């Protein structure tokens, strides 16, 4: 009897641990930021379906989604990465702290783009006639872009954003598709440098 209780409680403890692992097992600040990333992922999922034309364009949903992205970017994001916080299931690379300026720079960039995304919601997906918008295919690459002065490198596109990409007012005039792509590319830039790919 006593023995079976002992085993039963053991099994309970084990299953409790298993559940915690399945849920990521994250605690404290690591859990907080994983939840924040998850919230942004949810927004990206629903907005990207809209960008691909699978769901109807909804300016209000773009504004609300952009608000979520904005609330988790900039300092709100960097504050969730106190130095050395890589415990548990964290996917953060230690390079975050040896390269803090770049990390916080990308986070600030995300806030800038997310803010513009919300303000541009009424601009619509793309400007009439300008398929894909500014960042679409024609833009950076199209005729001569890659072969311009810089030879085979598109003009500095790999080396950072030109200054007009930093101007909030100009950004807010862009079509949503272009801004959303820039937002996604910012996410990817940070994941590429600072996230451990566990999947």
């Amino acid at each position, binding site marked *: 009897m006593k023995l079976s209780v002992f085993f039963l409680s053991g099994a309970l403890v084990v299953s409790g641990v298993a559940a915690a692992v399945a849920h990521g097992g994250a605690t404290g600040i690591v859990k907080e930021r994983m939840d924040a990333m998850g919230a*942004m*992922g*949810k*927004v*990206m*999922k*629903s907005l*990207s379906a809209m*960008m*691909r*034309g*699978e769901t109807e364009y909804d300016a209000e949903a773009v504004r609300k989604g952009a608000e979520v992205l904005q609330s988790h970017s900039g300092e709100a994001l960097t504050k969730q990465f106190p130095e050395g916080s890589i415990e548990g299931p964290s996917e953060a690379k230690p390079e975050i702290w040896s390269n803090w300026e770049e990390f916080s720079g990308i986070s600030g960039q995300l806030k800038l783009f997310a803010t513009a995304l919300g303000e541009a919601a009424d601009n619509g997906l793309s400007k009439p006639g300008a398929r*894909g918008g500014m960042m679409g*295919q024609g833009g*950076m*690459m199209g*005729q*001569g872009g*890659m*072969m311009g002065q*810089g*030879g*085979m*490198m*598109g003009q500095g596109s*790999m*080396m950072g954003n030109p200054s007009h990409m930093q101007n909030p007012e100009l950004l807010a005039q862009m079509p949503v598709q272009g801004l*959303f*792509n820039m937002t*996604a*590319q910012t*996410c*990817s*830039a*940070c*994941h*590429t440098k600072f*996230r451990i*790919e566990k*999947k």
Partner: protein
Amino acid sequence: MRIWLVGAFSALAIAGAGFAGLHYWPIGKPVELEASQGDPQRGAYLARMSGCIACHTDIEGGGTPLAGGLKLPTDFGTFYSPNLTTDRENGIGAWTLEDFAKAVRQGVSPDGDPYYPSFPFPFYAKFSDQDVADLWAAFQTVPPVAEASKAHEMVPPFNVRSGLKVWRGAFLGTEAFRPDSNRSETWNRGKFIVEGPAHCGACHTPRNLLGARQAELYLHGADKLPDGGKSPPITASSLREGGWTVGSLSYALQTGVMPDGDVFGGSMGEVVRDGTAFLSEEDRKAIATYLLERDE
């Protein structure tokens, strides 16, 4: 395991050397091109698709485009991408179109030396004569950079380049591209891009102990990539199981956004940032169509 590897490679090298005088064993086929006039625009687009710039530019280190120097650590040693600018001493400025064709499609240097397969020439073998001429025309527009290429730091016995001749004999297939006439033009365009310039299989097909891709596991995903990461399988069935469609896959190749809302990181983030984001919508759709509708 490394010992096993070294042993196997040495045995191959010694056996080969004993037999034929490996050093003098000529490799590669003579080059006769049907096209010599290239279109630099088209070539630059192909170069982008092929990852030339991404791998031959040390972006992090502030390197000049195509001047090389990017580090690629592997089990066999550390590779450094060489200078591909038009500098005559340090780059490929003194090469002919035929030299270039042989290097890109056969993996043989103008001096007759074999290149390590870290340079994905087995994929570039799919290039047509016109593709090669276009690429060559594009490379002519690259300003010279007088920076010497860094020597690879190989772990013995892989530092013996002529051992690669045995490797080539054992593993290398460099067939030209063959379209499938029963399939759509889009599908065939995707097949060309995936099997050729985009060299998807370089990371998504697992390699054997000697670094050769395992044909029967084509696109089944691999671990132990140079950056320490893993690549997922991208066979048609696994992609469909993962919920991918032609629309979502071509969109991911443009933006990095996956169907679940997560955004690519790791080396796939780089592939999108430096490569597929710059392709035409049609080409991204072609890649997605081929991958999702491939026979397995």
